């Protein structure tokens, strides 16, 4: 601090010296301009006739020149004085300017210092703010962390619950699967049983006097017809669908559809009618996807009644398409 004040004082002293020595230099500078005005006169002298005039004139002119010179000398002195004054004024002005400048500089410095101080304050404020902000952030973060922690805990709890639920479900599922499997097995067994049932249902049927031994199953059902008709009735179509489904499950089975009639009407015409009943039934089974080479048809006309009665009840039973199994 002391060093800084000393250097400022020295600086001020130097400035005072400079200000006092400057005016002498300015006087020397004015001389060349006066000499130039004296050299112009000789150039205005004229020839003989005008010698007198010129001589007069010349005298006059010399006079004049002398006045003029004096005048110029006075003017010059005045001028120098003016210049001196001007210089002094200028110096004064310069000094004043310098002072002003210094003042301004000081002021500026002051301002700068103030500014710096202000800035410092601002800085401090900023730091404080930042600090506050940081703290806030930290608080927030903490809160967030806490929240997250809580959330995580919750989530973990939920997860745990979920896991438990999943485990429970899995257990249930396992049971169900087991049950399902059991059911499936049951179904399979039932199917196998059913197949066995089909197998079991097969009864050997020997028609006396007719070549070959065939099988019959109660599971392959008969369909019935109206008197003197061979079209398949809607209800009987359903029966044929069931029969076809069973045949599809036993693809090696070959069948023969027998067309039968009631006792009314003549033997030959009933043979034709039975032929048509058997064939229509066969064609219907083929339309349900049974391979044609698995089905043959035969007409028994009225020769093989199921019911020997002579009434409508018996007749209705006898008008039928019966299916036998030629080979398994």
């Amino acid at each position, binding site marked *: 601090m002391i060093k800084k004040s000393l250097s400022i004082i020295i600086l001020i002293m130097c400035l005072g010296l400079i200000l006092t020595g400057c005016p002498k230099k300015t006087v020397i500078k004015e001389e060349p301009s006066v000499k130039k005005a004296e050299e112009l006169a000789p150039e205005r002298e004229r020839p003989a006739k005008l010698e007198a005039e010129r001589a007069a004139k010349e005298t006059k002119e010399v006079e004049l020149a002398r006045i003029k010179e004096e005048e110029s000398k006075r003017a010059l002195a005045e001028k120098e004085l003016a210049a001196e004054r001007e210089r002094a004024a200028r110096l004064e002005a310069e000094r004043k300017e310098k002072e002003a400048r210094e003042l301004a500089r000081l002021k500026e410095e002051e301002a700068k210092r103030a500014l710096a101080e202000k800035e410092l304050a601002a800085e401090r404020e900023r730091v404080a703010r930042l600090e506050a902000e940081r703290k806030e952030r930290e608080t927030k973060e903490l809160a967030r962390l806490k929240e997250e922690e809580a959330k995580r805990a919750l989530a973990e709890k939920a997860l745990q619950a979920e896991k438990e639920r999943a485990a429970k479900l899995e257990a249930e599922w396992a049971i169900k699967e087991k049950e399902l499997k059991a059911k499936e097995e049951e179904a399979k067994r039932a199917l196998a049983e059913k197949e066995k049932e089909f197998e079991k249902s097969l009864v050997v049927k020997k028609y*006396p006097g*007719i070549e070959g031994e065939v099988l019959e199953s109660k599971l392959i059902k008969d369909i019935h017809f109206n008197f*003197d008709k061979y079209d398949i009735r809607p209800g009987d179509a359903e029966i044929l669908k069931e029969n076809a489904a069973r045949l599809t499950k036993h693809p090696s089975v070959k069948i023969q559809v027998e067309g039968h009639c009631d006792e009314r009407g*003549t033997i*030959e015409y009933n*043979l*034709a009618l039975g032929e048509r009943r058997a064939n229509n039934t066969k064609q219907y089974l083929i339309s349900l996807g049974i391979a044609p080479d698995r089905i043959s*048809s*035969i007409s028994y006309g009225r020769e093989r009644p199921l019911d020997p009665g002579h009434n409508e009840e018996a007749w209705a039973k006898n008008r039928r398409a019966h299916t036998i199994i030629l080979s398994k």
Partner: protein
Amino acid sequence: MLKRILLLFTILFLTFLLPAEARVYIDINAPTFVQIPIVLPKWKPVDNTPPTLSAKAYEILKNDLSLSGFFRVIDYSRLPTQLQSKEGIPSTLFLQEWMPAGGEILLAGETFLESNGLRLRLKFHLIDLVEQKHLVGKEYEGPLQSLRTMVHRIADEVILQITGERGVHNTKIAYAAFQGENKEIFIADFDGADIKQITQNRSINLSPTWTPDNKKIAFTSYLKRNPDVYLIDVDGKNLQRFAYYAGLNASPSWSPDGKQIALMLGMEGKSDIYLIDVKGNNPKKLTKSHGNEASPTWSPDGQRIAFVSDRSGSPQIYVMSKDGSDVRRLSYEGSYNTNPSWSPKGDQIAFCGRVGGRFEIFSIGTDGTGLQRLTSNSGNNESPCWSPDGRYIAFSSNRMGWSKIFIMNANGFNQRPLTQSKGGESSPSWSKRFE
């Protein structure tokens, strides 16, 4: 129609082969005709001929004449006492003596068994008591076992004298009959005697038909688990699988020239009428409708075939030419007409029609006119079949509670069962005459 007969004439029986003019005594086609009363004194067993043999010949003849439907037989037991003891052919005949018998015709005969016991001779004379005229006298000779045939010939000869056409006593009728659960083929004589079972395969054997040579029977059988047509000799030998196309093979009918057979074949999934050759080959389809076609029967001129078709929605009788063209519907009455049978004379077709839930036998002219109902109110009557002379129709009827073969005159008269068996008979087929 009974002719007027004059009486009182004595005839000496010196020659047996006296040519007799065949006169029509009765018109069997008349809506009603009165049976001619015929007097049958006892037959005489000549020399050492057993009286039982003579009595047997007498019974066969008596039955034949009754069955023919033309006669009211006055047998010896119904004669006045003084005539009952008379037997054989009198050397002289006092016609007045026979007046009390009440007959218009007298038939007398003798039986002679040769001493070796093998050869048999039958002799008869036929006398018109009204016109006082000897009609015919003949003698037949043959082995003892031909007794029935020989008597049938006598009956046929008598009928020729009276009606102008030989009788059909030497024909046979084939039919199917139940044997337990199975149907077998049988043959019986016209008089119901001499029943022979010609199949014994325990199968279903249906609708027999005679081949034109009278030597074989064609029928449908399920032996091979398909309704196929078989041929078998009348003695039950040489079973031959004849038509066995896929599906139904049934109801064969031989053309009059014997060269073609019309039948039902189901090879296209429904029954149609086809022609095949005598070897059962080269089937040619005749029917072209979408209906079920059944029961073909040839016209005697071999040009047309009658058959059943349900192309109109119910079974009806149709006629077509033998190439399947020119199809015409014949029956319009009723909703169920089947089993046509073309008469040997060609003018009529007999068939089975349903009336009020019952099946009856009808006949109709081949031009569709003259529909006649031949049976009524007596069970169901089916499968009509003409005798070769066209004077009878055989059919099946369950009027007795079970199905039996019946025979009636073509006008529906004189219906009687063919055999005395229990029943279960169906589908008669009449043979031609056995010579």
